[in-house]
């Protein structure tokens, strides 16, 4: 396995509504800033891969326009996944493993303020049996939270603790949308949105984009020499999917996260920090258990998806958030997780190390 490192990462502010700023402008800001961190120009990038979703903008080919942000003249080697950009990173990582490329740019973007996000996601479901019922994303997550409570795995108080911790962590994150000091009592006094979920148990609608740059060890060491930053190596990465039919899954656990975590080697060393792509508060508790993390690991030090959730890039942002801390020497080994689909149907786990 070739050693591949993260050498740059940038995220735009995670705002509720980016206004007239379009996808191209958001991507341009993220990509340019990531390249500027290490003095790269577009000629230093050998492969580019992105993640986005056409349904956010309401038109086919969101990624085609985004190409305008890259200055792809002369033409570039480029690919796209209609998935969270964490999977774009996975594709780029595989291509680098073939030995064909030594550097790669990954970006993801989402402008969720355009439409009714949680209803749009009902269109992710089985088109014949489930979609016609229009179960929105929040209601499905609520079913999962209720199942966990009924199984005695979590309490509403624990969910509120996740939210309070997220907003407290987010105070140190200038890009975060929701932050501040909240007590569990304050949060539990709020009305429910879709029982047992309260509004703060759900991710905020977010506009933004992020970009990340990968390089082989040779390139990474050269680029970061003398900058005070260190390359962050991807020492394990794996992803798994599970059944689409909610009725056939045990919603209180995550088989796919558990397998991906084992394959990625989460338990091969101490986990200093973990960024978990848990759009809903109860999912953080579920993922923590599936990955076998204990209280010695700081979870979502950036505030996580509850503080800002760029749909289609929030998974890549977890990888970027862990990498930034390791790059700066605040942690040595961390775990990043990304998810896709209703109630955590598909999950990716990456282990990142500074060495």
């Amino acid at each position, binding site marked *: *396995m070739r050693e591949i490192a993260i050498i740059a990462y940038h995220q735009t502010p995670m705002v509720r509504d980016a206004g*007239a700023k*379009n996808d191209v402008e958001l991507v341009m800001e993220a990509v340019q800033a990531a390249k500027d961190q290490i003095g790269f120009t577009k000629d230093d990038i050998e492969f*580019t891969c992105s993640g986005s*979703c*056409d*349904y956010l*903008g*309401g*038109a*086919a*080919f969101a*990624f*085609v*326009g985004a*190409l*305008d942000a890259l200055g*792809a*003249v*002369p*033409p*570039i*080697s*480029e*690919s*796209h*996944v*209609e*998935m969270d950009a964490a*999977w774009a990173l*996975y*594709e780029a990582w*595989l291509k680098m*493993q*073939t*030995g*064909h490329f030594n550097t790669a740019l990954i970006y993801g973007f989402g402008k969720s303020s355009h439409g009714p996000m949680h209803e*749009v*996601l009902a*269109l*992710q*479901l089985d*088109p014949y049996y489930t*979609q016609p019922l229009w179960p929105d994303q929040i209601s499905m997550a609520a079913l999962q939270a209720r199942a966990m409570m009924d199984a005695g795995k979590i309490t509403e108080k624990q969910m509120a603790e996740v939210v309070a911790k997220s907003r407290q962590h987010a105070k140190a994150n200038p890009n975060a949308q929701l932050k501040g000091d909240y007590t569990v009592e304050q949060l539990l006094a709020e009305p429910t949105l879709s029982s047992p979920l309260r509004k703060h148990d759900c991710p905020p609608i977010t506009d933004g984009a992020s970009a990340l740059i990968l390089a082989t060890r040779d390139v990474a060491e050269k680029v970061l020499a003398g900058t005070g930053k260190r390359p962050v190596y991807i020492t394990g990465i*794996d*992803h*798994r*999917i*599970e*059944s*689409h*039919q909610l009725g056939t899954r045990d919603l209180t656990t995550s*088989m*796919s996260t558990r*397998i991906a975590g084992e394959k990625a080697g989460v338990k091969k060393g101490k986990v200093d920090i973990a960024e978990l792509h848990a759009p809903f508060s109860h999912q953080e508790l579920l993922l923590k258990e599936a990955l076998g993390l204990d209280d010695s690991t700081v979870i979502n030090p950036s505030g996580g998806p509850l503080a800002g959730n760029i749909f289609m890039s929030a998974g890549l942002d977890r990888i970027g958030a862990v990498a930034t801390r390791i790059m700066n020497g605040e942690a040595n080994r961390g775990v990043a997780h990304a998810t*896709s*689909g*209703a109630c955590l*149907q*598909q999950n990716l786990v990456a282990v990142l190390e500074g060495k």
Partner: protein
Amino acid sequence: MGNPCAIVGIGQTERYKSKIKKSMAGLVREAAQNALNDAGCTWADIDAVIIGKAPDFFEGVVMPELYLADALGCVGKPMLRVHTAGSVGGSTAIVAASYIQSGMFNRVLTLAYEKQSESNAMWALSSQQPFSPHLNAGAGGFFAPIIREYMRRTGAPDDIGCKVALKDRRHALKNPHAHMHEPEENLDLDKYMAAMMLWEPLRFSEVCPSSDGACAMVLCNEDLAKKAPNKPAWIHGTAMRSEPTMYPWREEVNPQAGIDCAKDVYSQAGITNPRKELDMAEVYVPFSWYEPMWLENLGFADVGEGWKLTDSGATSLDQGGDIPWNCSGGVLSTNPIGASGMIRFAESALQVRGMAGDRQVPGAKKALGHAYGGGAQFFSMWIVGSDKP
């Protein structure tokens, strides 16, 4: 390029049609099962699934891979969904190849599909982007002015487009999977020229149909390829290129991204003269005139001379041409958009495996699979051979 990668299984929808009365899950399952049968393996033998399709709007399902995970036996396995516009079928196969070439996986299933009968593809491709003027009605409306420019530059006779369409529709009669099997009496140049004009200069007879269908392949490493029941095809090169839809000085008739992509894939496969060294090509030609245009873009003919190859019958299997293009009938005879690129890639592999039935080019050893998408700005290509590179 990494470790050697072989194609050991190919499966397609039994017969592509304008409306297949099956669920999307049923549609993909059929093609995948056919590929597994060819590869002599079962669902349990597959390490990962890489799926591609064109815009989600076509079927009204956001990220349909989530829904298709069960039908494709993915539960507990890795699944990736590629989307690179019309080139996606080709790009998906290339991404799948990197699973094997990286040495991280031993055997993977790759599949691309479209079920266009779920919606109206022309209007799904004509949606207005936020903050942008609404420019065109369907892909044909976008490409017609570019084709007119090709005709102006080259002075090619008006009937070249119809000749391409006739050639491909005749090829389609040899392919049991092809959507369009026109009655012999309709395959007539006068009739093709008299057809209704859709987007001047494109007639109804010169454009692709709207199809339902899926195409799948099983890719594996060298060890497993040796144990496969049928002869494998080997990947000799893969390349992808992208450029923006519009920019000043962009060459739209002969796009730079296509030229660069071909150059890259030829250099990997050690090809200097594609017309001589390749035995056939499956090239994405959804509108007739794109055959002469791509003949030039891909280096089979000098700039301005592509139409002469078509006119001479060089690209026709029926006329014994030296470089048959689209023996399957091509996109002009079958177009489930997201799958069309993979069908090109799969048909080129079938040829070098010697398993192309009536549409087989005798003794084919090396072939090109090609796909393009967007405003002729996304390209994916592979070269496959009967021998391991």
